[in-house]
């Protein structure tokens, strides 16, 4: 093994951290050492001497290894932030979708299915409810209307916020992804193939799917249990309030679960 190859093999053994950044470090050091060797060969040195000098001038690998550790930690922090934004975004979008489900329930099954939540209303609350719904026959009827309508409008509002958050997350991910993988090939030059380069640190972004699937599954179980409990107590009154969320959470858990499994099966090892 030549001196440059030995240096690179030793470096490869010591690389730890984000795979894409580690690969980038190795590529960068390799290009440096080969470029230095070529330049020294051109001055008339023998290959062994040129390689020895190139390695000596490069110096110890600690600085690049430190830099890799720092950048891995940085990518992890950024990736976690992006993951949180995406998770919050999808969570809010799911809330919005459950609002749409409530709208369907309201139209198909009547407002009591979602709006007839158990509970007593104070005279003050009743007055407020009747002021909002003057056509309602009594306080409970006004409460049913108010609950059923709020479950649509407020949830749709949350969904719109979620879409906004996902857009922000997408912009953020795109920008940091470009910074990590490089801004593309310079004009007139051929780009090297990008091999399994993924956004986010050490699969943080990929983990969003798995975490979302788990969170939605937990939410689905809790919400469906709540609707079953309510159905046993009230018959059907207010069941839609929880069932709408449970249905959306269950579908979301399935969707994200499938995505997570697919991503895991298709993940490629950089290098």
């Amino acid at each position, binding site marked *: 093994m030549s001196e440059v190859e030995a240096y690179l093999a030793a470096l490869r053994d010591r690389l730890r951290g984000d795979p894409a950044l580690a690969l*980038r*470090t190795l*590529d*960068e*050091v*390799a*290009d*440096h050492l*080969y*470029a*230095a060797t070529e*330049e020294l060969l051109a001055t008339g040195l023998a290959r062994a001497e040129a390689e020895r000098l190139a390695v000596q*001038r*490069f*110096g*110890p*690998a600690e*600085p*690049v290894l*430190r*830099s890799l550790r*720092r*950048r891995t930690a*940085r990518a992890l922090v950024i990736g976690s932030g992006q993951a949180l934004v995406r998770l919050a975004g999808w969570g809010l979008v799911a809330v919005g979708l459950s609002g749409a489900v409530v709208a369907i329930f309201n139209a198909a099954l009547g407002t009591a299915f979602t709006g007839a939540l158990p509970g007593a209303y104070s005279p003050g609350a009743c007055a407020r409810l009747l002021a909002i719904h003057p056509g309602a026959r009594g306080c409970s009827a006004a409460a049913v209307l108010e609950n059923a309508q709020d479950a649509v409008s407020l949830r749709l509002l949350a969904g719109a916020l979620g879409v906004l958050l996902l857009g922000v997350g997408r912009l953020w991910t795109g920008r940091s992804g470009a*910074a990590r*993988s*490089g*801004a*593309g*090939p*310079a004009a007139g*030059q*051929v*780009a*090297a193939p990008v091999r399994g380069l993924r956004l986010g640190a050490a699969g943080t972004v990929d983990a969003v799917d798995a975490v979302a699937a788990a969170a939605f599954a937990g939410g689905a179980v809790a919400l469906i249990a709540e609707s079953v409990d309510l159905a046993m107590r009230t018959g059907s009154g207010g069941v839609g309030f929880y069932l709408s969320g449970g249905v959306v959470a269950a579908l979301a858990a399935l969707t994200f679960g499938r995505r997570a499994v697919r991503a895991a099966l298709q993940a490629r090892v950089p290098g």
Partner: protein
Amino acid sequence: MANPLLRSSLELLLLGVLRHGPAHGYAIIAALRERSDGEFDLAEGSIYPALHRLEDAGLVESSEVSVSGRRRRTYRLTARGEQEFAERRTAWFGFTQRVQAVVGSAT
């Protein structure tokens, strides 16, 4: 890199080299050595952490190209990097003038 003055001004020097156009790591080292008449002869591996810091700060950007079968990363100054270079250079000149006013000229 033994010279502490060189270490503290490395980022400014890298920005100064990249101001003349995009370059890869080894070309930057060669330019540093050439422009300093061989005085700035540092452990070559030590420029990469500085380049990566500049990139994380958005002052330089990099792209990968294929050169004789190797992947080569080329760095270039961003618009923010150019601005930052101008500011740091002004600060550097101001600082050296004040140091000189205190310690006097070497000759």
